[in-house]
């Protein structure tokens, strides 16, 4: 995987003083740097050309975040929610998954690294202080960017790993499609960090998850973090429906089973490809070789396109079945899916959010290192 190197760095005047900004500027010394008063100035000059979103990724913006770092995952009313909290230290991503939802959301032509780390940590404190006793919050940084792709220049994950290490009502999930785990290996994580990989068959990785690492590298990296005492997690998300999916996903589970220790797997999620209708036009234009827009999609109640329900049921049921064959105890959940599909695909479902949290807590207690610092 080619390391990311921006074509230019734009830094907010105020952010320039932050240690994280200095670290990034040092790391990318030699890259032209421009200073702006406010990040919003970048909006005034969207890149020209047929692919402004792609072009925007070549600009790295260092800025302070003036909003709420900690946001509950936007689950919808019809779907069972798993109390996930999204943290946004970095917004936008150097990787190029064809289906990336950020293509629909992000209007700032840059990858933004937020530099006010202390403020973020203070907000986490505040959020967790309000969690009722016995509650468990999963905090993830992988929603608006890959959690590890910019770890070397920024050190964001390291700060969060340390912050969460001593807590009892939270776990941190770092979600990645890279193998950039080196900076994590020596950290004192207190068993509170889960390193997660999004998995897909190699053919999908090559065609739809551009600039990411292949399956073998992801699995090797997962084994390495397990060896360093971390729990691993896996997201079969997005599951892609295509001719031959069944054999490929079966093979994927088999390779996963060979590579990692199931007893140190915190959870596995299953989620099928879903996106706002407008993204289809973007995918066709930015990635003409992507086959995804040819899927048999229908508009769901959440106003996103989903594969037809029976296709989703079949994929969930099959993959869950193979995972259970591997290890009956593995905690499997469906991401953003309605109750009837949980029932149809998994044969059961937790009745409410409290029950979901309890399942996570139990699973984490069951896997060896939860709540303790591994030696």
């Amino acid at each position: 995987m080619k390391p990311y190197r921006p074509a230019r760095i734009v830094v907010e005047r105020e952010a320039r003083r932050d240690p994280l900004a200095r670290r990034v500027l040092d790391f990318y010394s030699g890259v032209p740097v421009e200073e702006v008063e406010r990040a919003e100035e970048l909006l005034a000059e969207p890149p020209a050309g047929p692919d402004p979103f792609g072009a925007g990724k070549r600009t790295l913006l260092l800025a302070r975040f003036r909003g709420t770092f900690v946001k509950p995952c936007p689950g919808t009313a019809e779907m069972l929610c798993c109390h996930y909290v999204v943290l946004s230290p970095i917004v936008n991503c150097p990787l190029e998954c064809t289906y990336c939802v950020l293509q629909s959301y992000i209007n700032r032509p840059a990858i933004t690294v937020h530099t006010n780390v202390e403020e973020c940590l203070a907000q986490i404190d505040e959020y967790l202080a309000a969690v009722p006793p016995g509650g468990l919050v999963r905090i993830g940084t992988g929603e608006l960017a890959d959690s590890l792709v910019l770890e070397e220049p920024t050190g964001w994950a390291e700060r969060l790993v340390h912050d969460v290490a001593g807590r009892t009502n939270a776990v941190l999930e770092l979600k990645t499609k890279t193998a950039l785990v080196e900076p994590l290996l020596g950290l004192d994580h207190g068993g509170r960090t889960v390193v997660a990989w999004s998995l897909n068959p190699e053919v999908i990785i090559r065609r739809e998850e551009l600039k990411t690492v292949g399956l073998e590298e992801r699995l090797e990296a997962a084994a390495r973090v397990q060896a360093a005492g971390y729990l691993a997690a896996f997201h079969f998300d997005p599951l892609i429906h295509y001719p031959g999916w069944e054999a490929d996903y079966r093979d994927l589970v088999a390779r996963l089973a060979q590579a990692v220790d199931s007893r140190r797997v915190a959870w596995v999620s299953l989620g099928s490809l879903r996106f706002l209708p407008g993204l289809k036009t973007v995918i066709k234009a930015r990635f003409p070789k992507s086959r995804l827009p040819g899927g048999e999609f229908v508009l769901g109640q959440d106003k996103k396109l989903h594969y037809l329900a029976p296709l989703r049921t079949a994929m969930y049921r099959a993959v869950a079945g193979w995972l259970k064959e591997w290890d009956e105890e593995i905690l499997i959940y469906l991401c953003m899916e309605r109750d009837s599909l949980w029932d149809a695909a998994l044969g059961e479902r937790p009745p409410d959010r409290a029950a979901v949290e309890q399942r996570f807590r139990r699973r984490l207690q069951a896997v060896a290192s939860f709540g303790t610092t591994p030696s």
Partner: protein
Amino acid sequence: MSRIEELTLGAIDEADRTFCVSFGGNLGNLERSMAAVGQTAPLHVRSVDGDRYQLVTGFRRAQVLRLLGRTQVLGAVYSREELPDPKAARLAVFDNFGVRDYNLVEQARAVELLLDVGEMAEAELVNKVLPAMGLQGHGRVLQRLRRLLVVEEEFLETIAEEGWPARAVLPLCAWRADARQAFFEVVQALRPGANKLAELVTWIEEIALQRDKPIESVLVDLKLRSRSQDEALSPPERLRQVREVVRRARYPTLTRMERRASELVGKLQLSPYVTVRPPEGFEGDAYEARFSFASPEELGRIGRRLVEASDDPSAVELRSLLTEGLPEDEEEEKP
């Protein structure tokens, strides 16, 4: 500064199309209005060699005036220094803004003129001009709009004539010429409205992705050319048939599920005053039943039949259709 002068129409070089944006479209309205009230606004021209003029704006008006047999026209005359090329290009494009809507081909020509002669930066075009034309302000739209001009002339004429919009037509600019030509023959015969055209374009592109085949093969596989020219059907029926064939190919499972659901509802033998519909795209957990009745007795009959139907195996299959889809033996399309 320009001078308003009365000019001889014959002194204006209409063959010089450097600044012409107009393309196709009906001149009838303009002709009627000019016949009634005459020329209300001057043409903009540049003087060339003293007694000849280059037309900058007003190509349609000049054409109509000629048709009306006028020999004298009102012109705002500039020298080349007063109206250099970039300014003239902008005047040519913006003079018509607010007077009439450009068709898509004219939008493409306007953009080309602003870039090539108007020396306008791409960013300004994307962020200001495209939205002012009612188009999405995106570099991709600009790129496709420019490609539109290399599309076959005959196709451009139909686009202008039908007033087909960007969302339906611009994707075609990314197709190979032979696919576009084959598709053009189909839509030329069918003359769909903008929405149906956009739908056909999208579905055909996506079938090609689904089947991993070039678009031209999809058109052949679906026999769209012969279907679009089927003499046994009326033009609306032909369009309906082609749309149905393409939809079935695009959504094979969904359309089979729809068919099965309607068969199963039929098997329930409910009153003709009852309609049962699956959720949109089978995305939901409940069917919707609606009924109407004119008397308490009728209501009773409908209610009793609904209760009986609840035990029917078809009702059970309808429920499982929502999550399980078709039974395996139903899954393959019958030839």
